[in-house]
């Protein structure tokens, strides 16, 4: 301990000497906003000279200047400031302003200014998204950055979104980007248990240059999140509170009411054999089942944060509570979060420690399936002339021969709980070696622990319970834990030669290891009155209640070495390069290692002297990059090996070969090229960027069909012949149509076009039809729709008509006539944000759109198939062909000719425009605040998903699957009110 103290003292001393010596001819200072926020990477230039420096991440700069020189301070987040040097320490306060240049690009291994960045990345303003009443942060990314498509398949509270950056890059349907929080990898699906209020910055890294430092994992792009750091100064407290109400959206699919349905049944042979008396009585009932299942969901959100410290030690701490009940009865999420971030040390020696813990309780219902036991299907399927309860108050059981379970009973009686614990902790040490200026070593270690529990209680009085083994209900319990640690060691050196040449190099070593364990059991025979394990009947050889018990586990590891080198000349020309070697445990010993590289160049044209005369152009930057990134994620962690798994014969365990293995399995590589231009006009009143990218994935993981005489039908391999291309263009535009002292109107928009094409596949396997009916074929986007074209109804006889492959009309349905139609992945998408500011009042209107996407609506088929007459039906069927001459697109209900299920009749346009968020907020003026101890107070009212334009015929067009199976849980329309206080 004493030794340590001595060392620290020594370090401090050394540091002081160094600082005193440095001050002699140099002006230093800190650039902060009016509220004290440090302005990282601001550019400081001595006016009239080429002497330019960048401030560091804390806004501290140091520049050679004489008294009387004028310093020009520019940055993306504030208005340009000029100050005259009159003392050696020049702290500068600046006025905040939104601009794109010189944003910080947080790469997780460090930060660099957007000015010197040569790749494609976007920063998302956390303040814009953090107060949206959504539990899972990945949903908030929707429409926020070009090239990033975030779609949530579900409106269940806490549901994760699917995020795809620059298109699906492989054919194994693994398109999740890599998520990095404070330098370590975080499991994509678990954001519901993290607290986005703790996030300080969110950066999306899209091309090879930006993602290549994650080379082994960056093929699908990287989302880098840093959490808030403490700020020196007096203790600051913040409290945010929000209450909200959510309602279900109206479905565009209108079902028959009782009268219509009964009439339809009578016209189609009265399949339920209703007597006239029964019909007369049923006509008096007309239930809208959506009203029974949906309710107003409530949101409560409380966030408390504290920050403070001194020059040596700073802290940030927070507590969060988020409680949201779903719009469907018996669904919701409650989450509790705590965080503490500490930083301590001197200029040369820094220690950082971050700890975030979250616990969430998630209750859900089954969705996205066509199960009769899913309550969300029952909303559409249950007959309108049945009530949920009989006159004695018991659940009404459908008396018809094909009776469906009472869905309300299923929903209320079955309890599905998924508690999750999440702990993320990182520790970092940084030591700037005092003898060699610019040389530093850094080590960053962190763990991501996730613990998932399942508890699905299915009592015996439910339909699902009657299907359980033994027919007396089941209790399924599961416990998973996953731990991943990431360690990164870095040696970096940074120097400036002859004032003009900025050089920084680093060598890095990284390890990542993930371990997963699970055990689970399902008990049967729930005959006692407990809603837990107490109800389980002990299994015997004869009673049928022998519980199932199982477990599983897996692990994977990555080992990487990489080096980066960045060169800047006069802060005008930039060259970034990196190379890395990665090894993955997933591959066979001979194919573990792979090399990835990146090169990027940038040129700030507007800083050239010949541009000085063009006054309207305040910024023009050109950049281009090329490089490779890798993908090593296949189906399981041990796909490369032939494996034997557990089996049993005659009551004795055995081992059976269950996986063919492929020792030649190796890295999938995505090679990408990106070029972009960034511009600012009229003092950056209008700014933006345009990027073009072209990424080719090679050595795609593919299941090849092998001769089943080998004992297996398919084998995973890297197909050298197969290639998948994503190319596209991204626009960002930001401008002030109006900007005056008291009123401003800011428009920010982004737009993406992504073209996904399967370039080639191995011979004999040039198209694959997936289980969901979509096709992946050469020359088309992966997962395209593949159906027979529907040609309407023959008015003469009511037969449905189909188009043959060559466009002729026929009344014979033949799967050979299937054609490739439209993509299930949206090629066009984006977001537009309007911000109107008037004094303390701000109105934010945020639209998102997804265009060019077509999906098969099986949810509609479920209620439009005339042979499902036993359940509720689409009102469209009232237009069914009945008599010769009827002009309609609904054919007669004849099973011999009715094959609409495999046709475009159910293919719908799933494009949409959505008013994603509207927020009106008011910052109470300082004049009022002064009288209190409160330093800031903001009140707001916010609406989400208030308006959607779509042709999609169900509740919600926001879907990430290749089709809608059924049982959709729509995203609610919500209104929230809230307040943010700072002390």
């Amino acid at each position, binding site marked *: 301990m004493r030794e340590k103290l001595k*060392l620290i003292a*020594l*370090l401090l001393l*050394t540091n002081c000497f160094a600082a005193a010596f440095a001050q002699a001819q140099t002006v230093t200072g800190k650039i902060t906003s009016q509220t004290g926020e440090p302005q990282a990477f601001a550019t400081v230039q001595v006016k009239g000279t080429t002497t330019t420096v960048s401030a560091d991440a804390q806004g501290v700069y140091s520049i050679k200047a004489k008294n009387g020189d004028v310093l020009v301070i520019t940055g993306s987040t504030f208005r340009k400031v000029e100050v005259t040097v009159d003392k050696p320490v020049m702290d500068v306060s600046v006025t905040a302003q939104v601009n794109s240049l010189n944003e910080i690009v947080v790469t997780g291994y460090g930060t660099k200014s957007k000015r010197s960045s040569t790749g494609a990345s976007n920063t998302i303003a956390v303040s814009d998204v953090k107060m949206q009443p959504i539990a899972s942060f990945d949903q908030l990314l929707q429409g926020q950055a070009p090239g990033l498509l975030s779609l949530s398949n579900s409106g269940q509270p806490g549901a994760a979104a699917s995020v795809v950056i620059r298109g699906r890059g492989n054919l194994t349907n693994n398109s999740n980007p890599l998520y990095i929080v404070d330098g370590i990898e975080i499991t994509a699906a678990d954001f519901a248990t993290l607290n986005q209020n703790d996030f300080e910055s969110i950066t999306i890294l899209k091309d090879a240059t930006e993602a290549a430092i994650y080379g082994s994992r960056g093929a699908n792009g990287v989302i880098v999140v840093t959490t808030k750091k403490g700020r020196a100064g007096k203790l600051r407290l913040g409290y945010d509170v929000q209450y909200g109400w959510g309602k279900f959206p109206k479905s565009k699919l209108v079902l028959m009411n009782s009268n219509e349905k009964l009439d339809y049944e009578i016209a189609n042979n009265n399949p339920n054999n209703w007597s006239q008396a029964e019909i007369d009585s049923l006509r008096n009932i007309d239930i809208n089942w959506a009203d029974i299942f949906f309710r107003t969901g409530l949101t409560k959100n409380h966030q408390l944060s504290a920050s403070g410290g001194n020059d040596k030690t700073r802290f940030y701490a927070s507590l969060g509570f988020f409680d949201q009940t779903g719009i469907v009865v018996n669904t919701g999420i409650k989450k509790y979060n705590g965080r503490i971030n500490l930083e301590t040390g001197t200029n040369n020696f820094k220690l950082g420690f971050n700890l975030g813990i979250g616990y969430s309780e998630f209750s859900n219902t089954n969705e996205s399936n066509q199960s009769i036991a899913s309550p969300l299907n029952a909303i559409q399927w249950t007959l309108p002339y049945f009530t949920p309860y009989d006159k004695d108050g018991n659940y009404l059981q459908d008396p018809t021969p094909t009776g469906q379970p009472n869905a309300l009973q299923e929903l209320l009686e079955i309890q599905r709980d998924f508690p999750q614990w999440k702990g993320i902790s990182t520790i970092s040490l940084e*030591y700037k070696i*005092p*003898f060699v200026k610019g040389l530093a*070593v850094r*080590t960053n270690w962190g763990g991501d622990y996730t613990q998932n529990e399942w508890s699905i209680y299915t009592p015996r009085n439910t339909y699902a319970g009657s299907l359980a083994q*033994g027919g007396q209900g089941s209790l399924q319990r599961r416990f998973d834990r996953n731990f991943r640690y990431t360690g990164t*060691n870095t*040696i970096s050196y940074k120097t400036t030669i002859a004032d003009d040449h900025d050089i920084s190099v680093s060598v890095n*070593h990284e*390890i990542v*290891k993930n371990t997963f364990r699970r055990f689970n059991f399902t008990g049967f025979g729930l005959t006692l009155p407990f809603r837990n394990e107490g109800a389980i009947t002990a299994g015997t*050889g*004869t*009673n*049928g209640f022998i519980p199932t018990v199982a477990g*599983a*586990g897996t*692990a*994977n*590891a990555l*080992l990487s*070495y990489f080096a980066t080198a960045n060169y800047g000349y006069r802060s005008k020309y930039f060259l970034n390069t990196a190379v890395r070697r990665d*090894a*993955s*445990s997933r591959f066979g010993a001979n194919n573990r290692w792979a090399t990835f590289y990146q090169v990027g160049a940038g040129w700030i044209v507007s800083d050239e002297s010949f541009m000085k005369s063009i006054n309207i152009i305040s910024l023009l930057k050109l950049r281009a990059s090329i490089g490779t990134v890798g993908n090593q994620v296949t189906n399981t*962690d*041990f796909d490369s*090996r*032939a*494996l*034997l*798994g*557990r*089996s*049993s*014969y*005659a*009551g*004795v*365990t*055995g*081992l*059976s*070969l269950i996986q*063919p*293995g*492929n020792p030649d399995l190796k890295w999938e590589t995505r090679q990408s090229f990106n070029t972009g231009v960034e511009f600012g006009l009229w003092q950056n009143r209008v700014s933006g960027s345009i990027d073009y990218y072209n990424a080719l994935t090679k050595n795609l993981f593919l299941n090849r*069909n*092998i*001769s*089943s*005489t*080998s*004992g*297996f*039908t398919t084998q995973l391999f890297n197909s050298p012949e197969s290639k998948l291309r994503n190319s596209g263009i991204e626009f960002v535009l930001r401008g002030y149509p109006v900007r005056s002292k008291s009123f401003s109107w800011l428009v920010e928009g982004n737009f993406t076009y992504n073209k996904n094409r399967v370039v080639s596949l191995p011979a004999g396997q040039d198209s694959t039809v997936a289980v969901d009916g979509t096709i992946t074929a050469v020359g088309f986007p992966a997962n395209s729709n593949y159906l027979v074209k529907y040609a309407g109804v023959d008015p003469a006889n009511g037969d449905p008509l189909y188009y043959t492959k060559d466009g002729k009309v026929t009344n014979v349905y033949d799967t050979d006539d299937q054609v490739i139609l439209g993509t299930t992945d949206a090629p066009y998408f984006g977001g537009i944000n309007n911000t109107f500011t008037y004094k303390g009042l701000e109105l934010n209107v945020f639209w998102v759109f997804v265009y060019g996407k077509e999906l098969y609506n099986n949810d509609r088929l479920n209620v439009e198939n005339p042979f499902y007459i036993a359940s509720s039906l689409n009102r469209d069927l009232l237009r069914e062909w009945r008599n010769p001459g009827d002009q309609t697109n609904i054919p007669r209900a004849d099973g011999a000719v009715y094959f609409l299920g495999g046709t475009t009749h159910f293919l719908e346009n799933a494009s949409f425009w959505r008013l994603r968020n509207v927020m009106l907020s008011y910052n109470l003026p300082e004049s009022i605040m002064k009288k209190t101890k409160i330093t800031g107070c903001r009140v707001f009212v916010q609406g989400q998903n208030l308006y959607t334009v779509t042709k999609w015929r169900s509740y919600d067009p926001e879907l990430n699957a290749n089709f809608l199976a059924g049982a959709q849980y729509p995203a609610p329309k919500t209104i929230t009110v809230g307040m943010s206080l700072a002390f």
Partner: protein
Amino acid sequence: MKSKLIIITSGILFCTMMVSCKKEFLDLKPYDQVALDDAIKDEAGMQAALNGTYAQLRNINLFGRALPLVGDLMADNVYIATVNSNRFINEFNYVFNNNFGQSLNTWTEAYVAILRANNIINSPLAANANVNQMKGEAHAIRALMYFYLVNLYGKPFTVDAASLGVPIVLTYDPAAKPERKKVSDAYQQIDADLSAAFNLITSTTKNSSYVTKYVVRALQAKVALYKGDWAAAKTAALDVVNNGGYTLVPAASYVAYWTNAAPITNKQETIFEVSFDGISNAGINSLAYFYDPTGYGDAICADDLYNQYSATDIRRTLIVPGVRGTQNVKIVNKYRNNTNNADKDEVKVIRYAEVLLILAETQARTSEEANALIRLNQVAIIRDPSFAGYSSTGAALINDIISERRKELAFEGDRYFDLARRNADVVRVNLNSNYPASTPLTLPASSNKRIWPIHQTELDANRNIQQNPGY
């Protein structure tokens, strides 16, 4: 000075960290699975692999359902009721083409069993009595699979031994694209495997769910019968009869025998069967569920078959008249443990009665008619105690043996192959409109539909495979 020391130390530390954890860090082992290279390294590992091989026989595309079902359904013993779950309709109606799913499934699963057996047979584990026993059992399972494969996808040996059989795969190689060998090659492999099995296996006492020395002998008798090699069949069958120690189940315990769901340890009736228990079973995809009217109950005993049994035939008590939809049907009640939670029906592969009938047939065909009648009546009379016994000769005797085979082995998947080996037409006698108008009542021996097509998936994946004629 001190801080320099610190830097140097930390520098060294840093560098060590970077190089230390290299190989072992990436060498991870699966948690609950074992790599093939590590699997069969000792006797316990081989025993586990052998159990895994036996377990594959339980697959629903093998003895779990398909094999014992199609042998009756494609012949004249069983029909699909009008009210049905839409399963096995193609097999029933002979609608076979290169997309016929069952042809892919049974093909694939049989080769899975062969693969697992291959890995045991090819294990370099040093020979000793235990290893030999286990390798012998694997040989027998491999022979059994090739026997079914060649009979489903190739012409009968007795009809055209030189025609296309099946690929003979003896080692694990996922990249291989083997071609079909001749039918005779398959039989040669089967003979080789069975004689290897006979030489390696020492046990004669393991229970009926495992292969013992006399299981191999019984299979040798059946294989030789299918080759028309009467002498060899007779030798093998006689060895089982004289030395195997098996007995026929007496009439009084016949129903109890079929009700029993446990393996046989007293050598009564069963020679080899595939074990199903309360946990490891095919559930709603089981053979029993397909016959059980409280399950799918789709498969019904043809009235023609029912009428073959005399009223006093104990075997008829396992066929129960009942109603399905509006049809009066004869429900097969041979598999009685569908609703038994504790244990499920074993599926018989070969029984003592069949060995006796093989012996009778080979004797009848080699001028030992008196002996043949003894063996035939040994079976016939124990099943029907009121029956006086057969006394036929010549072709009539052969016919009686075949007819007794049909009655004895009904619903066990024998009939179709029994017709095939004798190059006989399938002729379905349509009593009481058992068969709908759309169902073919005959399938001539000459028809291409007598053997299954090779599925298109296999043809696509393996260009060296030749399709059967007519597909």
